[in-house]
């Protein structure tokens, strides 16, 4: 544990041999290998074999290279699932971020009760997802849902939120946006607090209006926080599963199926599990996440450099 004292001046971070650091990293590395690598490799293996129930049980399913991937990508369900995933993720991000930012700016003005109200805004974030999703499916139920009851009270026609292919994706989107707003609010709010007030004061003295100050000062200075907020939101939204599964099971038809729910549906959600294709879809999802993960790292690097 002990190391030679530092002789190389204050600029060096830590003088010990860099290998000693691995003593501290060991638990994490063992942990990652045991609990991340194993499931991942297993999933990869699943996706490269052609399983029947029998061959799965006997562990002798033939190795078929990328056959499952080809079958998945060329199946009629792939394009809608990918499209839904992209739409779901993009719109979730835009609205979570937009609403979160508007609220952050609003709460940043420190009016009476702003602190407790902002705290209350966080509650939906950490409700168990099974709870939020169940509640939303109650509210959006065609017959006994409160949303349709409000619509009819205002003379509008009720909407089949969860049971029509036109609206089901919108329904799960609304629920997901609702769940994501607090996260965006928290991050953007703390980002706003880090912007020195004197910048605003100076700009105000120069005659800049509130709107101008927002676009010229707030937004540029908020850019790093925004980038991270959006990227974290992205990786969490890509793997959203519980909400959609509980509310619509990806239906009707496959109108709200995303890659995450499709993967589950193939592996668990029907009478006859199809492990190979299910694992393949899961791995495609990881690839997409990996792609954005690289962007995440890039952005962080650039930020550190700046």
């Amino acid at each position, binding site marked *: *544990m002990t190391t030679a*004292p*530092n002789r190389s001046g204050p600029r060096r971070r*830590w003088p010990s041999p860099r*290998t*000693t*650091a*691995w003593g*501290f*990293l060991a*638990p*994490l590395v063992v*942990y*990652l290998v045991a609990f*991340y690598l*194993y*499931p*991942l490799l*297993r*999933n990869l293996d699943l996706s490269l074999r052609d399983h029947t129930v029998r061959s799965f049980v006997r562990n002798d399913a033939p190795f078929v290279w990328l056959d499952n991937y080809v079958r998945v990508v060329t199946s009629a369900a792939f394009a809608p699932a990918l499209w839904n995933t992209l739409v779901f993720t993009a719109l979730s991000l835009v609205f979570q971020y937009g609403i979160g930012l508007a609220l952050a700016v*609003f*709460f940043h003005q420190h009016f*009476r*009760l*702003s602190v407790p109200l902002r705290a*209350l*805004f*966080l509650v*939906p974030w*950490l*409700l*168990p997802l*099974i*709870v939020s999703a169940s*509640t*939303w499916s*109650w*509210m959006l139920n065609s017959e*006994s849902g*409160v949303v*349709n*009851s409000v619509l009819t009270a205002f003379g509008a026609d009720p909407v089949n939120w969860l049971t029509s292919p036109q609206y089901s994706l919108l329904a799960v989107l609304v629920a997901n946006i*609702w769940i994501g707003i607090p996260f965006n609010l*928290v*991050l953007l709010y*703390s980002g706003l607090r880090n912007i020195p007030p004197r910048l605003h004061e100076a700009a105000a003295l120069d005659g800049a209006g509130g709107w101008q100050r927002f676009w010229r000062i707030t937004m540029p200075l908020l850019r790093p926080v925004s980038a991270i907020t959006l990227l974290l939101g992205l990786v969490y939204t*890509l*793997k959203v*599963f*519980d909400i959609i599964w509980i509310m619509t099971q990806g239906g009707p038809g496959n109108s709200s199926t995303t890659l995450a729910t499709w993967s589950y549906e193939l*592996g668990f959600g029907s009478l006859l599990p199809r492990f190979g294709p299910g*694992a393949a879809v*899961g791995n495609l999802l*990881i690839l997409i*996440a990996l792609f*954005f*993960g690289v962007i995440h*790292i890039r952005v*962080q690097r650039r930020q*550190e450099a700046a």
Partner: protein
Amino acid sequence: MSTRRQWWKTALGVVLTALMLFPIYWMINVSLTPGERMRQTPPDWFPTSPTFEGYAAVLRDQLPALGTSLLVGVCTAALTVAVAAPAGFALAKLSPLGGGPLHFVLVIAQMIPGIIMAMGFYSLYLSVGGLDTWWGLVIADSTLAVPFGALVFTAFMSAVPDEIIQAARIDGAGLWRTFRSVVLPASRNAVVTVSLFAFLWAWSDFVFANTLNGSGDVRPITLGIYRYIGNNDQDWNSIMATAVVASVPAAVLLVVAQRYVAAGVTAGAVKD
């Protein structure tokens, strides 16, 4: 002038908060609505003739589940800190070989869909006897928080001044002691943040609980909710009542500790 504007803002804030929390009101409303009125069109806006059967069921059936959730949550937090804090220290201060790739792995690890992890754990636990045990669930739940925790600790510990660490070194402290008695105390906010998140994620986890602890006596509260969603029977009073009860600790903890939440998430995300 300004006070009038303030009141206007407060009013708007209250309205917005009410809108945001409406689903939660609705959850409570449903938990109090008697079964035969539950599916009627239009729904009751207020629980005019409330039933407390759901809450009675929760108190009768779910206290052990709340205990399990508490145990699993606390242990998950402890395990997460134990694994993530030393790693954060190494990544932040010891510039280990391969630290960069490891950092990348941590970012990627957060993105793996829970279902894939759950399937892996299921087959792993089948062979080592980890199913339906509280420690099995602790390990599985901690995967939700360990990569995040390591990143947060790295960010926080980078901010600990090198001078403090060097002072400890000059006093003859070994690396481990320096970590334990200097760096860790200086990063107590990170410890709180990471523990808090690990606890809350474990508390609200459903996917792992359902896959790994679907049976037996070690059922967390999210499964307690699920228990009322039987095959041929759904007791929505109890489902929603359990939901209300399960939300209380999470909500209280969050509101009380929101200062740390904000600080922690930002630190994990934005290194400065």
